[in-house]
């Protein structure tokens, strides 16, 4: 078959890229080879637009065992325990088929984690949808949520935290990011690097079907002689098979038989085999006749590009085939030797006794295109919102509107569809600043959270990047965890647009700066570009997944008020920054202006202070202050505990809106017993920490001077009513 311009375009390759392929091969590729190049050279596998920027991120410190570059990052949490985690996007598939897209997103990230030898112990997700009024939103939302639940619940890993957000920027491009966290023995981590020649390459898991063959509808119809209807099909997740695969892999990992192991994710068999060979500086030879296929007459092109789920590639030590195959037989899974490692440094594919493709591994990996794309710095609209120019609204009206709005409403309706308790180690479930998972049979725990702030990142990518790392850090601190490392999912628009590329570049600089300052390195992540349609790119939406360590299970904290009559203290200074706040955004529909400033020094000092307070045990509850400001944070503390508050405006305050809705960073709210207050005060003074004592907890009423008074039960109702209205239920 002749490779035409049309076919090249269809494969998403630029003409310069095609020329480069010819140069690297010293000839024209055949159609199979072209397909393989297109899969390996696309943005998703090659990171060609992001690599130069990602290099800037800090990826090491004393706790990091494995940083980015493997299936997942690995950190040391002491006692030979390692935590393995990563986040990944499944945005486009979820927009096409929300249930399956989200489900397979969860399946994919789980494989990344257990491939490394870790048993997954927690799932998280960050999901962003368009305007609730948009016709598509309801279906997408319900489909995605049940897809995430469907997969995690079935495989039996608790889904413990996440975020659900709405913004019209996602109307035509939702975001579905899933994070998995696993626990491994530090001495038994498994990597993808192949070693040794003539080692058996084994295919395990589900059979290969025509799933998600990268949009190759036209391609596969054309390439196949008997071109029957062969539409590319959506990947369907099979959590039951994944469970079998996970158990079988973990069982095999107890033996000394695996040289290297790699899940088949995007670009399936192609990327897994190339990755393993490339890292080992070897070649690999596959006999495609042996690949277990679900359908008749599958072509080499289809086999190599299929994205069927629940499959793995393993390189075994010599002589371990029988032992390994017994394990997979026990779990009713396919186990087939489909090839071997070679010293040729080529990917070589055989089909029906013919060599059908030969490509130097380097051509697919280290020689893949790399772009330092043009980018422009963000230009700012310098105008700051003047408070006196705003339309008048009463404080309580604004507050009620916000607390019952889609974004700020309680997300119980999401999290009640996720099994959060299975595995029996969930100490704090969704609804807190960070979920807490006990390390099985040990006296320690990890805390996990995911966060994003697209509005901030849109208006000032650099600060947005910093802010989101700090928010993640703060969420972990708030439950008494020492933040250790992050994973990140960078969801952006079209990188060929210099403004978008600028958002990306500056955002990474912000993330870098904060991570460095807080000693909070990045150990894994994912980049998703081309989110949006035509010239309508989504807001830059980096999502940060943070993991922290709790060494003493008696020193855990949460945001639920514990008793009436305690003092309520705001830690950190409130300047009243309203630009980009929920208040300005939702109540005044203004979207210009800069996000709050991030002072890393204050962030660190305040955080370390709160961490110390939690450890001394003199405070009753803690909550970080984020979107919505102090009043929203207080509301969440009241709603979750059904304990009210009585707050007075601080005296020096000029404006109640600015004080209570302002979104200044580095702040926490803490509850402290009256009897401990003076001790607290002196600790703050000793450490130069700014604080405001704003009131006390009380029974029944949520009350702010004469500006707001509502029964806590009613507040709870307000906070919970949105989803049922949206979904047309009447309870």
């Amino acid at each position, binding site marked *: 078959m002749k490779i035409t311009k049309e076919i090249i375009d269809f494969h998403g390759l630029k003409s310069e890229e095609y020329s480069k392929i010819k140069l690297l091969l010293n000839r024209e590729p055949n159609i199979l080879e072209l397909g393989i190049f297109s899969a390996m050279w696309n943005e998703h596998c090659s990171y060609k637009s992001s690599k130069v920027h990602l290099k800037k991120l800090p990826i090491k410190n004393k706790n990091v065992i494995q940083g980015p570059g493997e299936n997942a990052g690995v950190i040391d949490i002491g006692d030979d325990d390692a935590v393995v985690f990563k986040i990944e996007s499944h945005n486009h598939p979820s927009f096409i088929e929300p249930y399956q897209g989200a489900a397979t997103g969860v399946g994919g990230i789980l494989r990344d984690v257990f491939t490394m030898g870790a048993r997954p112990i927690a799932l998280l997700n960050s999901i962003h949808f368009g305007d609730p009024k948009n016709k598509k939103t309801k279906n997408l939302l319900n489909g995605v949520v049940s897809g995430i639940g469907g997969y995690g619940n*079935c495989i*039996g890993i608790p889904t413990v935290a996440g975020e659900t957000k709405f913004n019209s920027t996602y109307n035509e491009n939702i975001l579905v990011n899933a994070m998995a966290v696993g626990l491994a023995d530090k001495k038994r981590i498994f990597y993808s690097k192949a070693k040794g020649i003539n080692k058996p390459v084994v295919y395990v898991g589900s059979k290969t079907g025509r799933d998600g063959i990268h949009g190759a509808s036209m391609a596969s119809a054309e390439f196949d002689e008997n071109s029957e209807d062969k539409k590319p099909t959506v990947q369907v997740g099979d959590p039951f098979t994944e*469970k079998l695969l996970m158990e079988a892999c973990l069982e095999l990992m107890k033996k000394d038989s695996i040289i290297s192991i790699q899940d088949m994710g995007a670009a399936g068999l192609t990327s897994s085999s190339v990755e393993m060979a490339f890292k080992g500086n070897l070649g690999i030879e596959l006999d495609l006749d042996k690949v277990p296929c679900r359908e008749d007459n599958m072509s080499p092109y289809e086999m190599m590009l299929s994205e069927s789920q629940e499959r793995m590639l393993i390189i075994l030590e010599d002589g371990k085939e029988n032992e390994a195959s017994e394990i997979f037989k026990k779990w009713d899974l396919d186990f087939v030797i489909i090839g071997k490692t070679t010293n040729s440094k080529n990917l070589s594919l055989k089909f029906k006794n013919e060599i059908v493709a030969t490509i130097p591994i380097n051509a697919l990996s280290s020689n893949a295109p790399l772009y330092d794309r043009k980018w422009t710095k963000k230009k700012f609209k310098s105008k700051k919102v003047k408070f006196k120019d705003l339309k008048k609204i009463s404080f309580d009206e604004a507050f009620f509107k916000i607390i019952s709005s889609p974004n700020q409403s309680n997300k119980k309706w999401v999290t*009640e*569809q996720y099994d959060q308790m*299975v595995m029996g180690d969930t100490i704090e479930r969704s609804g807190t600043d960070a979920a807490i998972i006990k390390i099985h049979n040990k006296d320690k725990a990890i805390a996990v959270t995911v966060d994003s702030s697209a509005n901030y990142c849109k208006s000032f990518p650099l600060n947005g990047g910093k802010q989101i790392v700090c928010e993640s850090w703060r969420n972990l601190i708030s439950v008494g965890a020492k933040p250790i490392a992050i994973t990140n999912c960078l969801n952006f628009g079209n990188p060929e647009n210099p403004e978008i590329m600028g958002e990306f570049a500056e955002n990474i600089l912000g993330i870098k700066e904060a991570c460095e300052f807080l000693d909070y390195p990045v150990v894994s992540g994912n980049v998703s570009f081309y989110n949006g349609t035509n010239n309508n790119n989504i807001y830059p939406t980096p999502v940060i997944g943070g993991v922290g360590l709790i060494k003493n299970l008696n020193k855990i904290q949460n945001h639920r008020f514990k008793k009436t009559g305690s003092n309520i203290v705001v830690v950190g200074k409130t300047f009243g920054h309203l630009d980009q706040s929920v208040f300005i955004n939702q109540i005044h529909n203004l979207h210009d202006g800069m996000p709050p400033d991030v002072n890393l020094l204050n962030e660190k000092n305040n955080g370390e202070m709160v961490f110390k307070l939690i450890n001394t045990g003199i405070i009753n509850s803690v909550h970080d202050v984020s979107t919505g400001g102090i009043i929203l944070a207080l509301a969440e503390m009241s709603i979750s505990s059904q304990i009210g508050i009585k707050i007075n405006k601080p005296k020096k305050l000029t404006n109640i809106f600015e004080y209570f809705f302002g979104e200044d960073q580095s702040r926490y709210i803490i509850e402290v017993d009256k009897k401990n207050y003076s001790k607290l005060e002196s600790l703050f003074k000793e450490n130069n920490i700014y604080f405001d004592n704003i009131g006390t907890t009380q029974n029944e009423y949520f009350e702010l001077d004469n500006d707001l008074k509502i029964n806590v039960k009613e507040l709870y109702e307000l906070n919970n009513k949105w989803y049922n209205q949206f979904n047309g239920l009447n309870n």
Partner: protein
Amino acid sequence: MNSSVIVFPGSNCDRDIATALTKLQFKNKMVWHKDNELPKSDLIVIPGGFSYGDYLRSGAIAAKSNILNEVIKAANSGCLILGICNGFQILIETGLLKGALLRNKDLKFISKDVYLKVTNNNNKFCKNYKKNNIIRLNIAHNEGNYFTQKDHLKELEDKELIPFKYCNKNGLINDSTNPNGSINNIAGILNNGKNILGMMPHPERMIDNLISNTDGIGLFTSILN
């Protein structure tokens, strides 16, 4: 006391129940579904999970496994059998318990803590609870909507074969406190011989205050003595 936990390929609460049993001083063994023999047991637990992905009908495929023949034999000779969540569904599919577990009324997976009233404690599983105790356990299921024919329902009520019903924290039992649509708010049932208990809520998740509460312990200690 000797206990056995049956493990199917898609079981996922097997470790949790084993942890609970061991913590509460049972001598526990895990039994793989392909096995043909049961270790000597005073209690057999069929744990929660998605035994075969819950494909076809939840519990249907597991009910056909080798080991279930042995479980049925043991049950008929009076051994205590506890089926939790998917285990309840499996017991229903084997016919050891009567009725059906249908999709939850709003067709959504439900995972949350619920209140239960111990409506009958006159059986080996509940004797350490007081009658009309209100306890809080976690549920996590898609198909927990218990249904049975009128005459069987009457039998269940008359013979005190319903140990748990969904309620609110004040013990109110009605539609508004029914999470999944179960007939008469039923959360668990016993067979006529009262040696087989199937229940949707997870007692093994409620044995530790750090994680949740200790309301599940009563069930295990009842069995123990």
